[in-house]
């Protein structure tokens, strides 16, 4: 058992900026995001589509399309290595082995012409000192752990032969195959039925508890956040606008956007005529509003909001906000 602080920080992202330089202009997909991932915790990155959460996840492992995209600032610190500047060889040793990523759509995240077994085993053969048989055995064990019946047979299947839920589990199995310390999951419950969603959440809970994994869980669903998260980072317009432990986010949200998100959640107990929603649409990352990106939709916007970007305010040890209302 490892001695040490349970609050030990496993991954630290500091003022990360990832821009995409396209023919039509610069897209500031991630524009100054900072957070820490602690050991054994589930940190949720929350936001609507276009807010930069997926690009943030990809940036940690430098997996975005590199001709248009580039990390223009900030650091990603893992194990005293800065992932934004380390060599490709170092990065490859970390990918899959230390930090694993599960992509958003299980449908297309698997290679259609290779068997499941091939796709699990190739990673193990790469990072771990095993031969094919050992790798196969471990793969079978993993699939069973994920709740996939007849795991042996599944190794020989192709992705199109599996259901959506099974594919999702296979992806998780692949990501776990080399026992990484960090798992980044991009919207694993989004394109899935409610029942499967519950199973997947259970699976992640187990991972956190049994394996002490540190998880970055990306979602736009606050309900999921409440169920499984320890802390949350709310993202908007490429920045982190509020960061706090889950109970604080839900009960004492500070940023107007967070409040708006919470109000949108329908309350099963209440009977209402209309559901709440935040007016307007999430901004297009290539045309961000001036000053605070949320000001056009913010019910509490001040005069200063369109003119100046809000400062980062540390409200308490665990709670920080970017908003003019507090600073």
């Amino acid at each position, binding site marked *: 058992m490892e001695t040490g602080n349970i609050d030990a920080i496993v991954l630290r992202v500091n003022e990360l900026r990832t821009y995409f330089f396209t023919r039509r202009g610069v897209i500031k997909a991630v524009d100054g995001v900072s957070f820490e991932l602690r050991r054994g915790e589930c940190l949720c990155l929350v936001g609507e589509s276009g807010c930069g959460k997926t690009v943030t996840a*990809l940036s940690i*492992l430098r*997996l975005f*399309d590199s*001709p248009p995209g580039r990390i223009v600032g900030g650091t990603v610190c893992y194990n005293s290595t800065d992932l934004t500047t380390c060599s490709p060889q170092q990065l*490859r*040793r*970390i*990918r*899959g*082995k230390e930090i*694993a*990523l599960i*992509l*958003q*759509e299980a449908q*297309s*995240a*698997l*290679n*259609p*012409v*290779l*068997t499941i077994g091939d796709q699990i085993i*190739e*990673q193990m053969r*790469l*990072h771990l000192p095993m031969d094919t048989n050992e790798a196969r055995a471990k793969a079978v064990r993993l699939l069973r752990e994920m709740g996939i019946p007849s795991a042996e047979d599944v190794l020989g*299947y*192709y992705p*199109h*032969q599996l259901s959506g839920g099974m594919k999702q589990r296979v*992806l998780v199995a*692949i990501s776990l195959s080399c026992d990484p310390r960090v798992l980044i999951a991009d919207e694993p419950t989004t394109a899935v039925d409610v029942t499967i969603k519950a199973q997947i959440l259970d699976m992640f809970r187990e991972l956190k508890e049994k394996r002490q994994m540190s998880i970055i869980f990306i979602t736009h669903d606050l309900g999921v956040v409440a169920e499984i998260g320890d802390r949350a980072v709310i993202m908007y317009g490429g920045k982190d606008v509020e960061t706090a432990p889950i109970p604080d986010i839900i009960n004492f949200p500070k940023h107007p956007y967070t409040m708006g998100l919470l109000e949108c959640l329908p309350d099963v107990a209440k009977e209402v005529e209309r559901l709440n929603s935040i007016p307007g649409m999430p901004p297009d990352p290539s045309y961000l509003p001036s000053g605070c990106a949320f000001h056009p939709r913010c019910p509490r916007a001040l005069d200063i909001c369109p003119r100046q970007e809000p400062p980062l305010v540390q409200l308490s040890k665990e709670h920080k906000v970017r908003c003019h209302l507090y600073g």
Partner: protein
Amino acid sequence: MRKSWLRDYIIKRLLYSIVIAWGILTITFILVRVGPSSPADKYLANLAAKGHDPAQVIAAIEARYGLDKPILQQYGEYMLNLLQGNWGWSLSTSMPVMELIKRHWIYSFQLILLSSLFAAVLGILIGIYSAVRQYTKTDYAFTFLSFIGISIPNFWLGVMLILIFSVKLGIFKTYYDTTLPLFSLANLKALVLPVITLGTGMLAAYVRYTRSAMLENLRKPFVVTARAKGLPEHVVIGKHVFRNALLPLVTIIMFDLGSIVFGGAYLTEIVFGIPGLGQVSFNAIFANDYPVVVAITLIGTLVVLLVNLTTDIIYTYLDPRIRYD
């Protein structure tokens, strides 16, 4: 369960190919019979010069070729003959057409094989490189060159190569030397210019198709997954992306190159004097040797049919989505 499905599929395709083959033979027959000049007329022109009576000659020829029988009977006999391997008699060379084909097919075969290999290997490699390095100067250069490659008339290219390398520089002979043993280095050297001639167009096509098939797949999510596993880039491109790009590539190649390569080979043989089937057909045309011209057209077509069938079967091995449905 899977094996029997595959067998059924192959049988289905085989039967279909037979139907197509029947269609090919029938259309050829119709073309020949519908033609304004029957074999008799053409042969007539030759014989009239030697002082024979036209009417008698016509009657004799018609009897000899069975042209006086009803058309359906002719058709039946035509089909039977073809199936039995009796493809007619070549008047200009005085031997059975089949024999003529047997003597000359190897020259066409070696030319087409070498050109295809050259074009495929080089083309696919360049195509992959070009796709991976999209938007770089090298990519633009290769794309431009491939435009040029598919636009150069291949018979002109052959003549130009002869002009530069044989006439002006004297590196190669101007005409193919038929006395060389097939598996010799000298033969290989003699084939360099012809292979470049025939291969350039195909090369350019391979580059374009490979590049486009690769680009289709390079940005797909499973590629990101592969990289996220920490796999080295050459494995990601070579194993993951290329295996997927191979699918549309194989289909396109089957459709395009199957027929085009024969036209190109025909012309290349004529330019370089290679005694393959194209050259044989060419000679036959000017000797008015009907059966040979028809036979060689048929052979080319049937080979294409065979290639299509084979590619079809190969495709089912490559795409698991078809196999396991």
